[in-house]
């Protein structure tokens, strides 16, 4: 099966939940799905044995404020987070994308259907502040034990911890 067919076959599996499709590279297809359908789409992908979950990438799309001097600054309270679930099957990579606003950064955990996702989810939870509903563990995985609550380092608004005075 060549890459195009493989990608089409993949898109076919999840088509009932897809909102929009794009092809960023020859061996990739990006499919946008609504957060409430994500788990169903992941389950369908895994059941079909199309490929395996390679990684979960988090992205931050903040909104910008322009102050009186014309300097653009990141608004820490408004913006969207995006999660990318990358599935690899041979050379093809299929990505399910979901967008979550800061105000409601909650999504169903997929740990019960794919155990491998646990570490990826915990990483995204810590670094981006996304709540995974039903995740088996929410302990710190990579950040230190005394890391301040509510500080998410990979959000654009984060520029470093304040020096302890």
């Amino acid at each position, binding site marked *: 099966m060549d890459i195009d067919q493989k990608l089409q076959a993949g898109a076919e599996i999840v088509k009932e939940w897809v909102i929009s499709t794009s092809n960023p590279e020859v061996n990739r297809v990006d499919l946008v799905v609504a957060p409430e359908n994500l788990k169903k789409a992941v389950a369908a992908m895994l059941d079909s044995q199309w490929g395996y979950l390679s990684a979960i990438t988090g992205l931050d799309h903040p909104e910008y404020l322009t102050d009186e001097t014309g300097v653009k600054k990141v608004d820490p309270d408004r913006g969207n987070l995006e999660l990318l679930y990358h599935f690899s099957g041979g050379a093809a990579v299929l990505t399910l994308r979901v967008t979550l606003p800061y105000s409601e950064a909650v999504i169903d955990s997929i740990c019960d259907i794919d155990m491998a996702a646990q570490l990826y989810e915990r990483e995204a939870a810590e670094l981006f502040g996304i709540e995974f509903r039903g995740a088996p563990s929410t302990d710190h995985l990579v*950040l230190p034990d*005394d*890391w301040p609550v509510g500080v998410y380092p990979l959000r654009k608004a984060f520029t470093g911890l304040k020096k302890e005075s």
Partner: protein
Amino acid sequence: MTTPMVGVIEKVKTWARVNSPWVIHFNSGSCNGCDIEILATLTPRYDVERFGIKLQGSPRHADVLICTGPVTLQARDRLVRVYEQMPEPKFVVAVGSCGISSGVFQGCYNVVGNIGDVIPVNVYVPGCPPRPEAIIYGVVQLLKSLQN
């Protein structure tokens, strides 16, 4: 005890220490590059054990602490604890550029700084990573300074 007697005992202690220092290794956030080179010093090509240098598992038995990497927030307390558990007199060798200046990791949010910021360091070995010969040379420099 009389003073000359104490002097003799001290001499014997230094002699023993210089001829067979026990070493503990701690990675406080390094990329492993330095760590595999430290391990390489124990293996047949370099074989520091023939000089009496022994890698030790417990800080309570160690004379020299070999540290690698920048210090991360999570590792800082552990590094201090390992250092405090070591019996006096104790010496620290910081291996690699990261231990000197945080190296390429400078400015990363989880990096507190270099090893010298957290515990006193006696010898710095530069390099990314230093060759095994350089690490051995660093330890030898430390031992020489003890003799005087």
